[in-house]
């Protein structure tokens, strides 16, 4: 369950600020509510283990089950992880309180959820997308998760129409942080970028493993459309979005649905809608009229949470470098745009040190980016090769002492061996770049043996170049440098 923020924020500006893509004259406005499970050892208010995937109902205790007389005690580590999230999202950490959100549901053991309400821990932050667009963060607050119900006997797998239900309380009381963005997102693609970047930050600060497929990160989207210059439209909240890809699809579908309704002269109702991955549509879950009255009030079993300035500073000091800063550092070192695919991949794979080391020894950093993007992707798992070893390899290639093909072969050995001396490996493989004279005679030979391709190449058919280079590589058994072959072919064509 999410904390709806209806009565907490008033968002109704005529001007949405930044203009997003406009579909049929309508602008899309999206705000995201992301729940993440914190990577604590124990639950938010009890000593039971916070662990996913174990036998049902093995991590339970009087507090988790809401037994009469049991009382919650706040988990200090959960507060610290929530503060890491807040600081990483540029929030202000404020004195905060907990409320009870009252509703009946079988997997909610106390019949109320303890959640931060009008005084959340983290407020007023922002997240910068790799392309520089800034998305406001309204709040990031602590709350407890519910148990997990599985319904049987019905067609839908939902409680309605089922004959019986089983409840696993292992998840009940697991600490969550709910991160509520401002309605600053203007397209499905931006929503995907936001969630991807948020996930990278959460993993970087060690707050959560943030796996959407395992449910440790869950995303609800508030979607509305309006004509630019008019007030925001009525929004619908989309639930049950279980992957970044589904998020984009659901937003696109929902925007289209709302635009079609308005165009048909109908009115969009404020409601909560359920994304159905199977049919690719959203369906009404509940309308505003039958929304629960949660009767929020201050949780009397807990005391206010006001982290000291010293604690906040200690958490801030201990934060690692965040993905945005890492991208900026790599962009600076390589001259490549921070949101380029190559840099995104390097940051995602944590290969910053390697790329920077290549630059440090005077290697071609652009080549290093390609190594990460292609060669490492082939290697599958994260290669455990010291950055310095890799830097030596790239330098050999940069200096023309190894061809790209040879470098790739050496790299494969480094990956298998978990590092090593690239110079020695290259020598043992008998790799040495061909000298210019030998290369030139090789190219002449290739031209002679591939007269058709040469003619096409000379006639301006770009594709023919590939055949000629390939033939040169084959003839040299990979020793020729593709770039130099290309250069020679161009020179000879004149």
């Amino acid at each position, binding site marked *: 369950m999410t904390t709806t923020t209806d009565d907490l924020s008033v968002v109704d500006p005529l001007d949405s600020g930044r203009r997003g893509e406009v579909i049929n004259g309508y602008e899309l406005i999206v705000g995201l509510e992301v729940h993440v499970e914190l990577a604590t050892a124990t639950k938010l208010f009890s000593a039971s283990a916070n662990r996913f995937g174990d036998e049902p109902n093995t991590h339970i205790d009087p507090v988790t089950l*809401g037994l*009469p007389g*049991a009382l919650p005690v706040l988990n200090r580590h959960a507060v610290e992880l929530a503060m890491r999230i807040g600081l990483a999202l540029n929030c202000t950490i404020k004195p905060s309180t907990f409320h009870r959100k009252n509703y*009946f549901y079988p997997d909610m053991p106390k019949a109320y959820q303890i959640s931060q309400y009008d005084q959340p821990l983290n407020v007023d932050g922002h997240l910068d997308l790799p392309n520089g667009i800034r998305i406001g963060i309204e709040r990031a607050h602590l709350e407890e998760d519910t148990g997990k119900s599985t319904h049987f006997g019905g067609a839908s797998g939902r409680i309605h129409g089922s004959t019986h*239900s089983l409840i696993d309380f292992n998840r009940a009381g697991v600490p969550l942080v709910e991160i509520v963005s401002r309605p600053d997102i203007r397209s499905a693609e931006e929503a995907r970028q936001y969630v991807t970047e948020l996930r990278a930050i959460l993993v970087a600060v060690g707050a959560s493993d943030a796996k959407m497929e395992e449910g440790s990160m869950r995303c609800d989207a508030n979607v509305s459309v309006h004509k630019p210059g008019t007030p925001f439209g009525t929004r619908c909240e989309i639930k049950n979005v279980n992957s970044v890809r589904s998020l984009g699809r659901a937003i696109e579908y929902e925007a289209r649905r709302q635009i079609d309704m308005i165009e048909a002269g109908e009115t969009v109702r404020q409601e909560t809608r359920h994304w159905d991955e199977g049919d690719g549509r959203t369906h009404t879950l509940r309308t505003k009229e039958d929304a629960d*009255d949660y*009767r929020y*009030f201050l949780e009397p*079993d807990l005391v206010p949470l006001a982290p000291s300035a010293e604690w906040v500073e200690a958490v801030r000091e201990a934060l690692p470098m965040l993905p945005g800063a890492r991208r900026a550092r790599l962009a600076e070192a390589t001259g490549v745009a921070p949101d380029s695919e190559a840099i995104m991949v390097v940051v995602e794979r944590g290969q910053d040190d390697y790329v920077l080391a290549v630059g440090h020894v005077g290697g071609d950093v652009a080549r290093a980016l390609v190594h990460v993007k292609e060669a490492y992707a082939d290697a599958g798992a994260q290669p455990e090769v010291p950055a310095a070893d890799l830097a030596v390899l790239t330098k050999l290639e940069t200096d023309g002492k190894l061809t790209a093909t040879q470098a790739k072969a050496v790299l494969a050995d480094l990956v298998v061996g978990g590092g090593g001396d690239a110079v020695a490996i290259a020598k043992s493989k008998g790799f040495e770049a061909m000298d210019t004279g030998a290369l030139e005679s090789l190219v002449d030979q290739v031209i002679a043996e591939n007269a058709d391709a040469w003619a096409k190449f000379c006639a301006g058919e770009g594709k023919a170049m590939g055949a000629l280079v390939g033939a040169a590589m084959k003839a040299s058994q990979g020793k020729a440098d593709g770039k130099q072959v290309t250069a020679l072919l161009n020179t000879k064509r004149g």
Partner: protein
Amino acid sequence: MADALPTTAVDIADAVRAGRVTAVDVVERHLAAIASREADIHAFNLVLADEARAAAAAVDAAVAAGRDPGPLAGVPIALKDNMCTRGIATTCSSKILDGWRPPYDATVVTKLAAAGAVLVGKTNLDEFAMGSSTENSAFGVTRNPHALDRVAGGSSGGSAASVAAEFAPLALGSDTGGSIRQPAALCGVVGVKPTYGYVSRYGLVAFASSLDQIGPFSTTVDDAALVLDVIGGHDPQDSTSIPQPHPSLREALRDQDISGLRVGRITDLPEGCDPDVLERLEVAFDTLRAAGARIVDVKVPAFGYALTAYYLIAPAEASSNLARFDGVRYGLRVNAADTNAMYGATRAAGFGDEVKRRIMLGTYALSAGYYDAYYGRALKVRRLIADDFDRAYQSADVLVTPTSPTVAFPIGAKGDNPLAMYLCDVYTIPTNLAGHPGMSVPFGTGADGLPVGIQVLAGTLGEPAMFRAAAALEAASKRSMA
């Protein structure tokens, strides 16, 4: 020889620790008293005779082995049946907890056991501690040991009656709006509601969490101090328990001199108190003055409006606290067509009228559109009440009032009139809203020869002064009887 056995908790513990009497003899005498009068009084929902004998034997074995069983060695104690006891039914005198046995002990139960106390039974109460007469119990009314046609007060009526009937020298109750002090007054025993957070609430089934506090019943002020010294103190399992250690109350009682103590007489106390009770109040002031205290007049307007705020705040919290009794995990379940119908059927069958009344009141007070006018407003009044007390405690160390406006009333007299019943707590409720301590000490008799209790109140952690004033009243009361 039974007559030679000590009767107070202090004397029993001393004698058992010294090996002068056995805990088994002590518990047998109390079990015999239960056997002879419990059928008339109905103080208990459950008598734990076998468990008590075993616990007493263990205490004796410890003494025989040269170990100290603790400050409550061999002292029988009765426990209000809203405190969790591992493996032993805990009912809150409600049908909705039918068959439930807690898998854990309340912190007070753990502390009592560690101190050598012997649990003799779980006592009757108004269902979920909601009431002032113990008539709202699903298991029948508790009768006043002084007059069997009268109520014992409530909601901790079973605990008060068990001490008054000498079933146990000590009992624990819980006090949300007067539920320890009022039955103590009506049954002629000492009853203490400590400062909020003095005693851990872990394992106390919540009625109104911001008001609930566990406290003792005893026959003497010293005994109450003894048990509070055992059960008080910080509990990491209760976030609202006071972190700093508090001084021993038994130590505080060694100084009996109250000369110079400023005793506040509230001049704007709400009317409606019976004249026989007011007469005893005047005697109380005379007694304290004679002992050297200074009587000062104070105004505490809070007494005039606290009841209204209380009947919004307490039911609001109760509506949330009692929502967990939904038939899903434990206790009663009445099956029905779907989940929502099961909730309704279970709660309709499981809760009594007074509990339902308060759940509805509280749900309404918290509802969208009514919150500001009711619950929100009550919270503001609550702050004003604390301010009122703070002003009064600038000129007085303790305040003295009647505990209850009347002596014990006949069973059934107020059953049809909830408002009349709520007024029983007009003098006790303001203290709970302020989080302050209060205690009732027996002080002679009123109409029909029934006990009258005098209430002593103090500010936050003002227990030492409160206990000294109560001890002075107790001493005078005992002298006049002698």
